[in-house]
């Protein structure tokens, strides 16, 4: 049957997924159509509720997104930033390191 991808342990059928998605979308639109149709734009009826405070009008900049994640993983990120120096000598040094490790693994791997 076309449209079914057999992975070794199961299958994935995108056409069935799309059909299910469309059915769920139809149900959602059906439920939405039973709501109130008359409301006034621009007044408090359509504004977001911020517990009575002013809604913020700023746009969170990219440098501040996920700050909690960066605070928690601070140690890992400091190590990672130190590793990425941007100096060409370290790039070639990484290559020589990998070559030495791979050489050790391939020549002595048979003995393990």
């Amino acid at each position, binding site marked *: 049957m076309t449209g079914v991808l057999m992975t070794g342990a199961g299958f994935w059928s995108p056409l069935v997924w799309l059909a299910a998605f469309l059915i769920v979308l139809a149900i959602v639109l059906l439920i939405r159509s039973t709501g109130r149709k008359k409301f006034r734009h621009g007044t408090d009826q359509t504004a977001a509720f911020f517990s009575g405070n002013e809604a913020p009008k700023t746009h969170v900049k990219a440098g501040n997104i996920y700050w909690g994640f960066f605070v928690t993983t601070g140690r890992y990120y400091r190590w990672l*930033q130190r590793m990425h120096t*941007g100096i060409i000598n370290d790039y*070639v040094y990484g290559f020589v390191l990998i070559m030495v490790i791979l050489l050790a693994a391939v020549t002595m791997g048979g003995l393990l």
Partner: protein
Amino acid sequence: MMDLPFIAVMILIMLGISAAVLKRNMIKIVMGVSISASGINLLLVALGYREGGVAPIFTNAPAAQMVLPTPQALTLTSIVIDLAVTAMMLSFVILMYKHYGSTDSRKRRLSG
């Protein structure tokens, strides 16, 4: 002393790559790559050599074993490629000197 060319090849390649790892001046890094390339060209030419051989030309050839011609072709190709690569790297160093004011590899602006 049959192995002398190959020992020289090893020394040249290791000198070249260690120059790329250890030297801070970018022109010296380019020189290191060029020395490595010369070492590999020497390897290719030395592989084709036969003891007491003559040049691989058929016209009026003396009756002796000929040196292998294929590595000579490989070496010519490699010399031309290394010329192009060295010229390009040096032109990038010139552009970087014009913008950054120094040839120190630590004075990079792209990192992290």
